[in-house]
């Protein structure tokens, strides 16, 4: 118990090997690669060392478009998903019957392959035969070219993403709601607090840590969006690259254009963004612990 021995490392060995080979080494390697001009992963050759890749990156209008799209995506998906999830979670929590049923239903998207269900959404967004345009037609709205017109590509992607991301948030909020003591609600009832006030003054503040957590996790996830784009636009980034995201940009540079250095530089930028988000999360949860 008191004696330290290196025996612990025998238990850790498999994890450490995997971590070094497939997490730490590639991290360092990606940073190094981002400074190698015209790098080729086939034979390891490169033409220059320096900031060429970063210069290329920041000269590329597509990269800025990907940054812009990703930001729009984050700003639309995360708050919308959080608000809707909060509403649904509170309503589910208030249900006496069917609680388990609703919980099961609403969590379904979380376990589903994005690729497969994205294909289904693609079919539902179909401008001629899609279910969505049909439903809109019932309200007299003209068919929308969801997947074929650049201006509708992002909205389609965002609708799909909100559908997909709500499951996790609802689950976290439901778990959080269950930790609020019933007595607080009883007290509020005796004080004849209106329902809406109970929601804004008791429920939401009690859930604040979960809301912050879900927001940060949601933002980190949203910055890394890729599979949703790939499946909704059948491997493309929407018409005329209108729905290109950072990760899509990186993979495109890497897998289709063979610009490994530029892809690595893009991934370093992504890493820095994620790191900043994580710092915010740590700061916020740290505050919570202090209080």
């Amino acid at each position: 118990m008191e004696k330290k021995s290196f025996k612990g490392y025998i238990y850790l060995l498999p994890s450490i090997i995997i971590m070094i080979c497939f997490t730490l080494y590639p991290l360092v390697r990606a940073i190094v690669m981002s400074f190698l001009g015209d790098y080729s992963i086939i034979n390891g050759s490169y033409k220059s060392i320096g900031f060429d890749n970063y210069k290329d990156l920041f000269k590329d209008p597509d990269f800025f478009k990907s940054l812009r799209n990703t930001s729009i995506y984050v700003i639309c998906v995360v708050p919308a998903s959080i608000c809707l999830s909060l509403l649904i979670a509170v309503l589910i929590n208030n249900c006496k019957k069917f609680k388990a049923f609703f919980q099961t239903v609403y969590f379904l998207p979380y376990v589903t392959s994005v690729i497969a269900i994205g294909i289904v959404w693609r079919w539902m967004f179909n401008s001629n035969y899609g279910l969505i345009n049909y439903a809109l037609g019932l309200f007299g709205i003209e068919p929308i070219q969801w997947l074929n017109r650049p201006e509708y590509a992002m909205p389609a992607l965002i609708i799909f993403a909100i559908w997909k991301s709500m499951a996790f948030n609802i689950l976290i909020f439901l778990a959080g709601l269950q930790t609020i003591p019933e007595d607080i609600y009883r007290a509020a009832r005796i004080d004849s607090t209106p329902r809406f006030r109970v929601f804004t003054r008791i429920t939401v503040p009690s859930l604040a840590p979960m809301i912050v957590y879900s927001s940060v996790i949601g933002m980190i996830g949203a910055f890394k969006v890729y599979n949703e784009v790939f499946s909704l636009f059948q491997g493309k980034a929407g018409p005329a690259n209108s729905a290109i995201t950072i990760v899509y940009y990186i993979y495109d540079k890497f897998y289709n254009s063979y610009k490994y250095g530029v892809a690595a530089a893009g991934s370093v930028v992504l890493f820095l963004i994620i790191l900043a988000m994580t710092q915010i999360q740590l700061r916020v949860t740290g505050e919570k612990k202090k209080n």
Partner: protein
Amino acid sequence: MTTKRKVINTVAGVLKYGILIFGAIFTVLPFVWMISSSLKTPAELVAAPPSLFPEVPQWENYKTAWAAAPFARYFVNTLIVTLCTTCGVLVTTVLSAFAFSRLNFPGKKTVFALFLATLMIPGEMLIITNYETIINLKWIDSYKAMIVPWISSAFYIYLLTRFFMQVPESLYLAAKVDKCSDFKYMIKIMVPMNKQAIFSIAILNIISSWNAFLWPLLVTNSQEMRVLSNGLVRFQTEAGSSTELIMAASCMLVMPIIIIYLFLRKYIIEGVTRGGLKG
């Protein structure tokens, strides 16, 4: 006064269930639509107004889709990769979590912090260089390329360490007095006591392995090595406008996980919640 309250309560109740049911329909609609489309005839697919259910379910769509591409092979590949990855994850996770929660070794805190720090690295960033590693190892188009990089997860290690830490230390001391070695203690006491948590981790990993898309796409070239999600995307391109077949193929990818989910819901929800509330 009381009638007014009654009315408010009724309206609130109707509104509550109304929203919940509407949301539930919105949530399950893609699944329903997928299944229904997969059983329709091409004419029914493009009919206006669209019907919710096909007049005669076209079960042969599945047969046609199954035969149109080597889905059986994809299925086996996915199963192999999923099971091997999950077994690997369980072994490394249990070993590491035990080391972090019970054993005392120099640099323990540093190593644990390092494991946690890796959670901040976006996997998307590592894919490029890991791809290079796989090429250098000449592992392209092999099962191990799809399995080995994923058999250890800092997140699951963190999760299980927290479960293991809840086991009172006196149990460990008691086992020690009872002449029980560390390894035996791990196998006989820690693992059975936390079997639910370990089971949750296993299911979560099965789901993520099954749904994995980009990595298997990158490291495989040949049709024989493809997994379901890659095969589905390829089939989508090949089948072109045969939407009913594409939907049937999508069902084949989605349904096994949904069935697992419906049966083992408790463990999945428990695992995600525990992992989610780590803050």
